[in-house]
């Protein structure tokens, strides 16, 4: 009975929605769009977001105002997005880790993929485990063998996620690691080049130093465009690879027609020359996913990442 009533209600809502929305979506956008970015101005994601905003505004014919709302790795911005009207005039460009990773690390964050609408992804982060180029090991397996002989080695970690990787590797191989906390990607590069740490987790910035830094394993399920020969951590017998992508999200309930427009406009980044230049400068690959693919990706990675964190014993703090 309730089920039936609910179905009827849903139908009614859908019907009114269908009647009312096309008109709205058709002339969308007819005023400037605000695009939130959950990191500080000048970071990699911010640069990509500004590049994408330029393409979007050319495609949609309306200016796009990029507003930086930094805090808690994007959570502050995502909460702000949730509170914004779902009319398509407030969107967010961010790393999807804010939804498929943050809830497993932070107790006060309870985002789920269907708390947002997904307008597609345009880039992916190429994270990996990296070491100085002159290190006596060339991949993760060799590193583990070396580390057994050299206990109390120093490993650089930027985040609890990075600690989790080392803890899992150490647990499996009975290693003794000293985990050195690092504050930023730049500091990570310093620690590697200065040989203060023997290995570190890099979010992708290491690609700018091909002669000085080598990658031992990728932390993604896919091979990296700039180092196709390096295997994924999963190929070494772990199941820890997690993909992070950047793209557009919108408040729950934003009209699918609007999301489709945003997704189509985002696709144009793939061929836009100045966008290509920006991401090439930052060594970020363009990997486009449309709105539907993005939604499926979010569902899949949310479940998968949750499983990884759970089995690693990582408690949200």
């Amino acid at each position, binding site marked *: 009975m309730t089920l039936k009533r609910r179905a009827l209600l849903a139908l009614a809502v859908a019907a009114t929605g269908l009647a009312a929305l096309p008109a709205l979506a058709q002339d969308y956008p007819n005023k400037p769009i605000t695009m939130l970015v959950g990191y500080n*101005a000048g970071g990699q994601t911010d640069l990509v977001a500004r590049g994408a905003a330029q393409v979007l505004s050319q495609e949609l014919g309306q200016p796009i105002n990029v507003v930086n709302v930094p805090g808690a790795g994007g959570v502050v911005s995502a909460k702000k997005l949730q509170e914004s009207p779902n009319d398509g005039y407030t969107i967010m460009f961010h790393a999807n880790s804010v939804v498929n990773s943050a809830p497993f690390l932070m107790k006060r964050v309870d985002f789920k993929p269907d708390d947002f609408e997904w307008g597609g992804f345009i880039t992916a982060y190429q994270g990996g485990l990296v070491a100085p180029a002159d290190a006596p090991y060339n991949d993760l397996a060799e590193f583990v063998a070396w580390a057994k002989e050299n206990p109390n080695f120093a490993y650089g970690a930027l985040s609890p996620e990075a600690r989790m990787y080392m803890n899992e590797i150490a647990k499996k191989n009975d290693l003794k690691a000293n985990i050195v906390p690092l504050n930023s990607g730049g500091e990570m590069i310093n620690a590697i080049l200065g040989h*203060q740490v023997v290995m570190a987790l890099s979010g992708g910035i290491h690609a700018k130093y091909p002669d000085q830094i080598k990658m031992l394993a990728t932390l993604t399920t896919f091979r990296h465009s700039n180092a196709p020969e390096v295997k994924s951590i999963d190929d070494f017998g772990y199941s820890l690879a997690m993909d992070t992508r950047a793209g557009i999200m919108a408040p729950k309930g934003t009209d699918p027609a609007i999301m489709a427009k945003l997704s189509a406009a985002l696709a144009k980044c793939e061929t836009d020359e100045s966008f290509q230049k920006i991401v090439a400068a930052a060594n970020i690959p363009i990997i486009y996913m449309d709105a539907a693919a993005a939604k499926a990706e979010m569902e899949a990675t949310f479940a998968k990442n949750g499983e990884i964190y759970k089995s690693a014993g990582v408690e949200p703090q």
Partner: protein
Amino acid sequence: MQALIGGFAEVFTFSTMFWIVTGVTVGYILGVLPGLGKATGVAVSIPLTFYLHPVAAIAMLIGIAKGSTAGGAVSAILLNTPGEPSSAPTALDGYPLARQGKAGKALKMGLYASVIGDLLSTIVLIGLAAPLASYALLIGPVELCAILVFSLTFIGGLSGKSLIKGLIAGCLGIAFSTVGLEIETFIPRLTFGMLELDDGVKLVPMAIGMLAVAEMIVQAGNIRKLDAETAEIGKSNRREDRNLSLEDWKVCAMPIIRGTFIGTVIGILPGLGASVASFLSYGAARRAADRPEEFGTGRIEGVAAAESADNAVIPSSLVPLFALGIPGSVIAAILIAAFVLHGLTPGPLMFKENPTMVAAVYASMLCASLAMLVVGSLGQPIFARIARFPIRLIIPGVLLLCCVGAYMETSSLFSIYIMLIFALIGFFAKKFDYSFVTFLIGFVIGPQVELTFRQSLQLLNHDPTRLLQHPIAAVFIVITLVTLVLMARSRRNQPEAPGVATTKSLNQGGEI
């Protein structure tokens, strides 16, 4: 040298010069406006430079960084509102000078100190980028930690009349700096469940609240006296208050040289930044002064010390970038993107692959220093008029600027609340004579000490004897201990009461 001359040839074209001056001017204005920092300025301008010649583009971006660093002094001196966080120590003596009718003098000294610090540091970059950079890599977390702990002893020298109050303020500063996610496990500390506090209390709204808003509250209660003072300032248009005398230069020469040195070294070391440099330089100048207790009442050396160090950081923070490809500061990190975008890969290869381009960038940096001098000199008389407005007109304007400045960085009202809370703290700190400087030093250096200490623990494998493998660190630890002992002794030997009395009478003498 030959290459540098070639570089100048490339820079001395109308369009390149035009973009340098544009960059410096835009930067200067961004610097004057509180809250709009150099990082935001450069980041937002990168897309605008797509269409420029690479040299012009990079010159413009560096011009913005340099200009805004110098511009930060203007609002610090005139309104007690640091335009950039690193100009906060400039306000400590610059603003009292402005209230004494010596705004012109303070502004000029601020500008000249900026230009000198900037120019010398640029020359260090050009001459020594390669050899210095390899030393920078020798300074790891263990060494940094020792150096930072040493710099915390400055709190002692900066405390002024009461060491205890100085230490209390310093510890409070450190306490506030621990707010936010703990660095290793991301456990939130003292955030009371507020996500906005996860990244800690931001320096900009805090400094604006403590310095500017608190000052405006104090002034609002004092309006009659200040109006009379302002009227006085308006009438007394004395040349010596507007211009720098030979005496001023004599007093400031050492602080400027010291500040440039401190700024250059801090710039080369990774991760410390301009705020640390300007505070340390201010502290060092105060310690070296013959009557340190007069600092904070309008000593021109205070302005000179802070500004020279502040500006010296920008060029020298490019040393690790140029020589090794490592960003030493936020600006350097943002510039990497710009360099690559325009076909230069920062790092040692850059000198081999693109020598003319590097020379052109160097030449344009030197030109930007001079452009800063020109833009600053032209802009100052316009800004300096602010000091002549009656205070009742200034207060609302400054409060508006404060709110905008606090809001800008995070686009959230939360920062304005932070500003208001610290305005309250600042007001009472002023009334009960607790030092801002030691508070802010604790706040700026505290997190760095914590991070490097934790890193050191891991790197030394929890074994103190391993410190012997880090001679630089060991030396600094010894210096710290010696300084503490010396300070304790000199305090004990000082006959206290007469010293305080003379200070007070001197202060009053200075104000009347």
